[in-house]
């Protein structure tokens, strides 16, 4: 089973077209294996990106260096997934 310990989902808030294309570049950097949850649309809409733990530092440095604002939407994805799984199993036990 693939697990996501330490993966974070960043909500990136592009200020202008230049920043939008910088974020698009990030998508193309396959080596950092970012997973686009909500893609680049236009300046008024955020971009949500799941970033594996091993790429986090680079991605945050990349964004901060370009003065691109972001917030952390999900601190640790695996924690949220574990909660979802526990809830499903508890409900299934209840049904049993």
């Amino acid at each position, binding site marked *: *089973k*693939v697990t996501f310990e330490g993966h974070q989902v960043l909500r990136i808030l592009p200020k202008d077209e230049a920043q939008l294309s910088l974020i698009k570049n990030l998508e193309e950097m396959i080596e950092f294996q970012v997973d686009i949850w*909500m893609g680049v649309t236009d300046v008024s809409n955020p971009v949500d990106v799941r970033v594996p733990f091993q790429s986090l530092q680079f991605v945050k440095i990349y964004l901060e260096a370009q003065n691109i604002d972001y917030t952390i939407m999900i601190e640790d994805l695996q924690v*949220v997934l574990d909660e979802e799984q526990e809830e*499903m199993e508890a409900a299934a036990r209840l*049904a049993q």
Partner: protein
Amino acid sequence: PRNTDSFDFSRYHTISEIYSFQDMLVAENPNLVSKIVIGSSYEGRPLNVLKFSTGGTNRPAIWIDTGIHSREWVTQASGTWFAKKIVTDYGRDPALTAILNKMDIFLEIVTNPDGFAYTHSSNRMWRKTRKPNPGSSCAGVDPNRNWDSGFGGPGASSNPCSETYRGPRAHSESEVKSIVDFVKSHGNFKAFISIHSYSQMLLYPFGYTKTPAKDQAELHNLAQRAITDLASLYGTRYRYGSIINTIYQASGGTIDWTYEQGIKYSYTFELRDTGRYGFILPANQIIPTAQETWLALMAIMNHTYNNPY
């Protein structure tokens, strides 16, 4: 659960639980619901479509699908709730009763079964199909880039490792080809609604070109009415518009193909959430999401019923 009345719609279910729900619903409602298997997935799972019909032959029809992107779990869960809602409301809700007395509704709840099973067994973040790509270590094709509409254009990837990999050719995925063949053989679909999550949008063609759809004005006005009805329940705010103008360029998309087949009322929903949980929407939001979405679906189905073409 021994019957669909005791099925727990407020939690996420596995593929086998959803398949047995479908069979129970058919058994409980033999005069309204039947199950059609329109094909099988790469790994051999049946592609089940529930048909809601009160008779007639080849009546004008409405198509709804959920779960084409497997990780978007609130969509399969909502589709299950929609199925029960239809059988509960038929004969009670005048609008739905009128629709079903003249039209059929087809509902494919698990449109990407291999991907959905994989999200339960191996990778909760999986989006695509599961067919291996020759020459690549990455499996799967994005089933919402594999349709023969602007196929291969900008807005899809030629890299098998990309989440938006379009596939080796249009309709290469059995999960897509099965719907294509079914829609073509039926020949009388009047509305086609493909449901995704997340980002709270209601979208209409096109995604692969900036050329406006010829019915753009009508589609736009209907979308506005639909999201207004949706928001009336819990205040959930949606954006709406054509795919390319509202989100981004996307080629080989489902509803671009259905619209080009002449199915005027072709829409894509992007359900909750707004950016707190993303694809991991808490189960306690399943029923509210399904309830509010149903109001928008009814707006589209009513309009389709009242505007035959």
